[in-house]
């Protein structure tokens, strides 16, 4: 199974881009777990944590409100502000 192409974008910069096998984010309706092959989706995110598994490591960042779009295994997470201090990769 192919991997997800993830782009994590803040208002003033590109925070992270790369491949991930799993992404978790919190939308208005609750937590979203995304695996490759997910249906196209455009969702509104609330303030909270976004985490993803990339290269066998688990990464977590904190965002304020934003949104997320998924199509053809391309995941774009957009937030006004992203606290990337927990990012190691």
């Amino acid at each position, binding site marked *: 199974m192919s991997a997800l192409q993830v782009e994590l974008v803040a*208002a003033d910069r590109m925070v992270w881009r790369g491949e991930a096998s799993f992404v978790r984010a919190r939308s208005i309706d609750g937590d979203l777990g995304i695996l490759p092959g997910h249906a196209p*989706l*455009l*969702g*509104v995110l609330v303030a909270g944590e976004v985490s993803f598994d990339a290269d066998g490591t688990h990464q977590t960042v904190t965002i304020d409100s934003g949104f997320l779009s998924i199509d053809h295994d391309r995941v774009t997470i957009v937030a006004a502000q992203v606290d990337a201090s927990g990012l190691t990769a």
Partner: protein
Amino acid sequence: MGAQQRIYRQKSRSVQSMKKITRAMELIATSRVTKARERVVQTTPYARAITRAVSAVATFSDVDHPLTLERENPTRAGVLIITSDRGLAGAYSANVLKRSEALRELLQDEGREVVPYLTGRKAEGYFRFRQRTFEESWTGFTDAPTYEVAKEIGERLTADFIRGAEDGGVDEIHIVYTQFINMVTQEVQVVRLLPLEVVDAEEAASEEDLFPLYEFEPNGPEVLDALLPQYVTSRIYNALLQAAASELAARQRAMKSATDNADELLKTYTRLANQARQAEITQEISEIVSGASALADAK
């Protein structure tokens, strides 16, 4: 040393110290403009993502959102004027203000009352000096605007727009700002911010990039509700960043020509001082000669 010479020396000394100042300002502007341009580039992914998302929602759900709705017979128009906090940037702020005056006349001719919103102390000073009223002004950040400022402006403008003209708000909002094209060209632009015209993402032309059938979470209208204010903010943020880069580029150019002018002046004053010195020497010689010959004649 004669009086004339001393005056020229004084002038050239003061020009020299001014030249040092303008040179320093030129160097500072040069180093900052690079950073400002980088910031514009770094916000592109965000702007692209948000534009794409907004046009995706607009394509798949025929929802009329208050922010996209054209109003019939608009009576009050807001104008956001983006200038700089400090001067010494050539005609940068003056150009923006001139353009906004033209826009004001145009809007008034169409029967709309103009409600100014200002950023930058230069615009504020311009309005205060003419004792004109303005709705709101934001100052103190123009050479390095932050997203928070854009958000604050965006929220205020959106709130006034939603309120509508009858309740003291506005029916449409325009932005006058300076677009950064390259280091030598910056153009004053007037764009309408609200009501929004959602332009389809340019790349949608290629097959692969056609929008898939998105599911919306929670649903189309609510996604649009959340997205549009962010879209407005991102437009304002982009305008502020472009204006900042333009301001610094304009300052760099203005300071460069000031330094060049100082060089030119220095050359002129040096020549004049030399001339004065020469004139003094010539006069002294002729005084000595005529004195000597007067003595010889008297014998």
